[in-house]
């Protein structure tokens, strides 16, 4: 496999943009990535387009990538449509990386895009439910409650076993809201207090409204190429793709407490491929779809032992100027969660952090960054899991 670098990234801000189409969101992100790379559309040889919900929300079920790419000024090049629920964008990134790593192409584009806000919120919520097995959805799952009780998370048991409280979960949201207040691409820019979060509307115990990520509109893009090609176009510090791992959820017997979680398994694959361990990660963007997930992810990524995540949030280890900053962008909580765009927004943030371009939310001199992204629900577990490791 060849060495691959991320030569350009770009975003359209996440938020509520009732007057903007999916094409406009994607076009902005794509052209920002092109400008960042010093490239034009004719330099791109292949494109992977991640999106989850357009078929149900706008009705554009087929060829959604081709419609967007033509609008953005591309023609002729191969376009591959990628759907993996909330992990669509990092799955698209993996496709672009493999094109260059395998030698099939020298320059590839990955796009993540989602348009969720319409004048009809119930339509958007119905579309989201289709990111689970539809037979199960018919039984009456409400995603927040489902998350709280699913065998994968089982939050009340976690709280009891490790003496974790709602305040610990709230502190995750508070940290991410502070980071998000510094991010011009974030949907929610208001810093919150622990009281704000704990006292916000109860959705499904232990989860309150502000512990949950919100839907949004947005897009993000990344251009990958060989280091040699990158040098011809850009003088920015090179960010190498050290690993990009993808797994699906797996069969587990109800009494199986030994098999590691799928987040643990996919991140171990990525660490092994990158030749590093969790102690080497300087900054991470993780999938805090609900605030408690971020704590569980600290443990699953090996940033601490099982049950010790609350110490990391209590002691500020994962805050912007802590030893292990997590979600400097504000995470899904503050940045917003346009599902098919989220993964490439994580990649964009890590690239900016590794180049030292993150402005007021820049963490101290990171050399290794990681993204963790999950999507969908099948059989009581998330459906798709990715971990990507980027190195300066």
């Amino acid at each position, binding site marked *: 496999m060849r060495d691959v670098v991320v030569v350009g990234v770009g975003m359209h801000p996440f938020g509520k943009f009732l007057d903007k189409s999916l094409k406009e969101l994607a076009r902005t992100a794509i052209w920002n990535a092109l400008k960042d790379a010093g490239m034009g559309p004719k330099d791109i040889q292949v494109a992977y387009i991640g999106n989850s919900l357009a078929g149900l929300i706008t009705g554009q079920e087929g060829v959604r990538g081709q419609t967007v790419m033509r609008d953005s000024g591309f023609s002729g090049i191969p376009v591959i449509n990628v759907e993996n629920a909330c992990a669509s964008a990092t799955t698209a990134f993996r496709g672009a990386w493999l094109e260059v790593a395998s030698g099939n192409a020298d320059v590839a584009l990955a796009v993540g895009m989602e348009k969720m806000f319409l004048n009809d919120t119930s339509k958007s919520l119905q579309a989201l439910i289709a990111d689970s097995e539809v037979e199960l959805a018919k039984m*009456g799952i409400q995603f927040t409650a489902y998350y709280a009780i699913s065998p994968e998370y089982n939050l009340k048991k976690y709280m009891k076993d490790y003496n974790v409280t709602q305040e610990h979960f709230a502190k995750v949201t508070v940290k991410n809201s502070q980071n998000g207040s510094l991010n011009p691409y974030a949907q929610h820019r208001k810093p919150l207090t622990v009281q704000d979060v704990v006292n916000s509307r109860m959705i*499904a115990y232990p989860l309150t409204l502000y512990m949950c990520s919100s839907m949004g509109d947005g897009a993000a893009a990344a251009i990958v190429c060989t280091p040699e090609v990158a040098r011809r176009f850009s003088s920015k510090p090179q960010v190498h793709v050290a690993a990009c791992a993808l797994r699906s959820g797996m069969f587990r017997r109800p009494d199986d407490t030994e098999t590691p979680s799928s987040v643990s398994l996919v991140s171990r694959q990525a660490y092994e491929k990158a030749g590093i361990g969790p102690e080497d990660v300087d900054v991470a963007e993780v999938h805090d779809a609900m605030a408690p997930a971020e704590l569980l992810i600290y443990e699953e990524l090996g940033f601490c032992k099982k049950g010790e995540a609350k110490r990391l949030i209590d002691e500020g280890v994962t805050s912007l100027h802590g030893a292990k900053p997590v979600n400097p962008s504000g995470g899904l909580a503050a940045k917003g969660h346009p599902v098919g765009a989220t993964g490439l927004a994580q990649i964009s943030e890590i690239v900016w952090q590794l180049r030292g371009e993150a402005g007021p939310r820049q963490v101290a001199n990171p050399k290794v960054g990681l993204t963790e992204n999950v999507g969908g629900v099948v059989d009581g577990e998330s459906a798709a899991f990715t971990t990507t490791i980027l190195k300066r």
Partner: protein
Amino acid sequence: MANGTGNSPTPPATKEVMVLEGLFHRSSGPGDKAYLIGSTCSACGYVAFPKRVVCPACVRENTMKETPLSTRAKVFSFTVARVAPPGFTAPYLQSWVDVEKGPRIFSLIAGVEPTDDALVEGQDVELVIEKIRTDEVGNDIIGYKFRPVSKGGKS
């Protein structure tokens, strides 16, 4: 339909629609017990729900035989959803239950007020087939739920 007589003055009667075919057997009367339809692997004994063709445990094809699941289960986890998808009414109880000699499955909970202390983990519950929601045209969608086993056994 063919001999249309124009606008009918009476609204259509509420119909009962099964949430999914092949998911459960509904009692037709006394002596005919309701049950969930699962499958048991003739090679390894694993019990799956809903029924499967390929055994998820030993991964052999065509070893799964359709079987009724036990109607008894224990609560694994639960919470009260205070918002609801279309057709459902909040608050309502969502749960995962461990079916006796069977799998861990998602279920709504019937028969108790939807409060945060309505159940305890490990509590005995039993199957009930009833309406889970109303659809857009007013039909009753029939599905499965579990409810606490009343003290003294039989309900």
